[in-house]
């Protein structure tokens, strides 16, 4: 047989993929920041208790989320030597990996609705590589824990971010796509 035994679609038959940021919807505003200390967090948000809780929650996750290396040399290829220390996951596996260097905290903006402000802020650990790039655990892949031991996955389980610590990110957009704007036609492939 020269054809697929079977075919299937998981996502396509559902609602079309939301493909553009231009379709702005009213949504709950979430503000996320990257902070290098509880103090910096407090200065930015004026919410010391949320910052303390976020720091503690991030620290609790940091060993599980950290990139994991089998030895110090491998860790030092990606991170500063003083950061690479022996750690233990919540499951008890020991590994060499970088310490948490900051934490993300995302808070619902208090839009006057009392219920929202009560929700605890979401927190996660942040890691900084030796090139000063910040990263967090990638969605669905916390530090490579999806593999049997996670060891050796290194930075593969992290998602880099552009957040600058202790302040908001600025980025420009729409620097791609100008050729398509000048052309008419259905497809830009071929």
């Amino acid at each position, binding site marked *: 047989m*020269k054809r697929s035994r*079977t075919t299937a*679609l998981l996502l396509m*038959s559902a609602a079309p993929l939301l493909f553009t940021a231009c379709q702005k919807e009213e949504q709950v505003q979430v503000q996320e920041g990257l902070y290098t200390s509880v103090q910096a967090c407090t200065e930015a948000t004026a919410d010391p208790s949320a910052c303390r809780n976020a720091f503690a929650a991030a620290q609790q996750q940091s060993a599980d989320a950290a990139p994991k290396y089998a030895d110090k040399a491998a860790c030092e290829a990606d991170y500063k030597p003083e950061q690479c220390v022996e750690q233990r996951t919540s499951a008890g596996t020991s590994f060499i990996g970088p310490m948490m260097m900051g934490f993300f905290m995302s808070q619902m903006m208090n839009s006057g609705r009392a219920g929202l402000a009560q929700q605890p802020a979401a927190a996660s650990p942040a890691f900084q590589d030796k090139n000063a790039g910040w990263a967090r655990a990638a969605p669905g892949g916390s530090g490579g824990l999806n593999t049997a031991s996670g060891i050796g996955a290194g930075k593969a389980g992290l998602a880099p971010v*552009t*957040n600058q610590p202790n302040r908001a990110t600025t980025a420009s957009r729409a*620097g791609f*796509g100008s050729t*398509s704007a000048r052309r008419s036609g*259905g497809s830009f492939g071929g």
Partner: protein
Amino acid sequence: MQRVRIAERPQWRARAEEAGFRFHTIDGQAYWDETAYYAFTLRQIEQDIEDPSAELHQMAMALVEEVVGSDTLMDRLAIPAHYRDWIADSWRQRQPHLYGRLDLAYDGTGPAKLYELNYDTPTSLFEASFFQWQWLEEQRNAGRLPAHADQFNALHEALVERFGELASRLPPPLYFSAVGSSQEDIGTVEYLRDCAAQANLHGEGIAVEDIGLSEDGRFTAVDDTVIGTLFKLYPLEDLMAEEFGRALPTSGLQLLEPAWKAVLSNKGILPLLWERHRGHPNLLESHFDDGSTLRAGWVRKPLFSREGANIEMHLADGTTQRSDGPYDGPAIIQQAHPLTRFEGGYPLIGSWVIGDQACGIGIREDDSAITRDTSRFVPHAIIDEAPTQIYV
């Protein structure tokens, strides 16, 4: 190879809607056309299409190695100097590729001839891989095709398998992008995202024009997440020419298709292939254009044209034909080898390579001998004669 009329499935439009196939009709014109199909023998498929496709693919891949090591060849392909090291590095790092499509002129007789490679942004994949497959199943079940009818189309399985192989080789997070206003391209990208999800590789979608650039030169999604790998159904040469392009080499972004596809999506690959495999039965003679008047028996194509745009044909019988389009710049000339006319139009065979495996075809039929983005997609089947003799 025959073109055979067949009754349409009464419910096919509903089936298309169910599957999220929204561009089956484009600007009121049929794009998916199942009022007929092309019937091949297994021998035609295997010997004339599958094997030559695999061989042409290998020849093309061997050329990448040569081109990325040569400034002279990069020059001939008009690849901008700013991007050459980045392209060469992407090849040396063996950044993985997903797919490509070889366009073949074939009418059932003689060797298939390579028109060009679509190795950066090939489209018409969903129709070939999924909807064509479903057509065969349903027409067999309805008794309109014989029970032994088959199809050269292992595309869906090959895509899911390939995404499974790519999962550990693409820096996360993965985003799938296309021009936000192109329904056809978004359909293709949605399908690929679906195939990836079936391999447990999950990615978000983003419009090409929504991609951001951070102050420290990294590419970002709408929520400022740094994009690790960008699948882009958007010409690489356009990305390089646009405002953000110069940031590509230092951004850390990995592309799918990878940067080295700049070598293969370029029509300059055709004269380079000819120079190295002169007289190969599946190649048409081809040279870089020196700008002189097009002689009878030759076709001129810009290095970067797509969708059959800006093609100039001067046939052996003296007639000329030309298609409009936005492309100019350096060009190649290729020996004219016009498509054969069947009842209904001129079919061109798109032969798909997933990873490095030739594993399926889709046929585009046009009213003219130049296949364009509006050419109709017509399904195919492999129908060998039922055995007339029983061997014991």
